């Protein structure tokens, strides 16, 4: 089926670009390895948890940084969580922003923190869009009767 092959090709190209551009790292591949017939939606489930966590954390960060007296320990705690969950799914660019963000927390640098928050939000939205597009592609392949290519 030409349609399936074309979709699979698209999937491979898209996935490759995500790794190349640093949106995803090897941890995402590790997640895919954990998906099988008895856990067919594992990746989507884990990524959904990441989306939920991220949105909550971004809100908490915005609130914490708006306080008259910023509690940098609290801010750092949120960033630490965000760094952890992004790293757990392989959202490399988000993790990298979090690393810088933590440095600014340590320095109690409000300006730096606010900039990092914007960056973190930006990177999160980007990777979220890309992952959603990837999952849509997967669905299209499955609906066309094909199987998802294994990426190495």
């Amino acid at each position, binding site marked *: 089926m030409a349609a399936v092959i074309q979709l699979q090709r698209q999937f491979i190209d898209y996935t490759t670009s995500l790794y190349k551009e640093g949106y995803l790292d090897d*941890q995402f591949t*590790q*997640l895919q*390895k*954990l998906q099988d017939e008895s*856990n067919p939606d*594992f990746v989507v*489930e*884990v990524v959904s*948890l*990441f989306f939920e*966590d991220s949105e909550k954390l971004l809100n908490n960060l915005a609130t914490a940084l708006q306080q008259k007296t910023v509690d940098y*320990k609290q801010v*750092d*705690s949120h960033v*630490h*969580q965000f*760094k*952890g*969950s992004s*790293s*757990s*799914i*392989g959202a*490399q660019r988000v*993790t*990298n922003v979090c*690393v810088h963000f933590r*440095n600014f927390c*340590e320095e109690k640098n409000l300006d730096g923190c606010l900039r990092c928050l914007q960056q973190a939000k930006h990177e999160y939205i980007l990777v979220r869009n890309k992952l959603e597009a990837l999952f849509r592609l997967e669905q299209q392949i499955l609906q066309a009767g094909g199987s998802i290519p294994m990426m190495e």
Partner: protein
Amino acid sequence: MGVIAVANAPLHVLAVDDSNLDRKLIERLLKTFSYHVTAVDSGSKALEFLGLQDVEKLPSFAPNDCQPEVEVNLIITDYCMPGMTGFELLRKIKESTSLKDIPVVIMSSENEPARINRCLEEGAEEFFLKPVRLSDVDKLKPYLSKNKRKNNDEDECVSNDKSRLKYDDVEARSMEERKTFPENQSC
């Protein structure tokens, strides 16, 4: 003694992590190796769970309603948790006469030598850097076969496994950031 050894019961791992994402991950990783997993979100819940196996609290043997003793063969815990840290949990386990022989593994996102050494010195068998992978969980095998059946008459022969994570191994593992935070940084 009112204990029934369940023949061929899967090895039971207690996983402790305050992040639901990481709990889901570690559970899946452990289940790949066919371990039975209980996942809790705090050190206090872990102790509560472990406390249920306290010998004093076991129900007296009754033919119709006796419960097989719930054994925990290994505990794997996150280091950074609100309330009780993984280190504090480790310490409490090692201080307990009934629990001290259960192998404990610590997971952390921070590659901090002082932290790692402290945990190993306190009795942790391994220290895994997050995100934890299948190859890490594979290293748990020797610790699980050793403690497999608490009430077994014959002790299983355990090779002196050198797979214990050392400081050198930790340094060699690639992490995206090398910066170590001062010890007073909570996590």
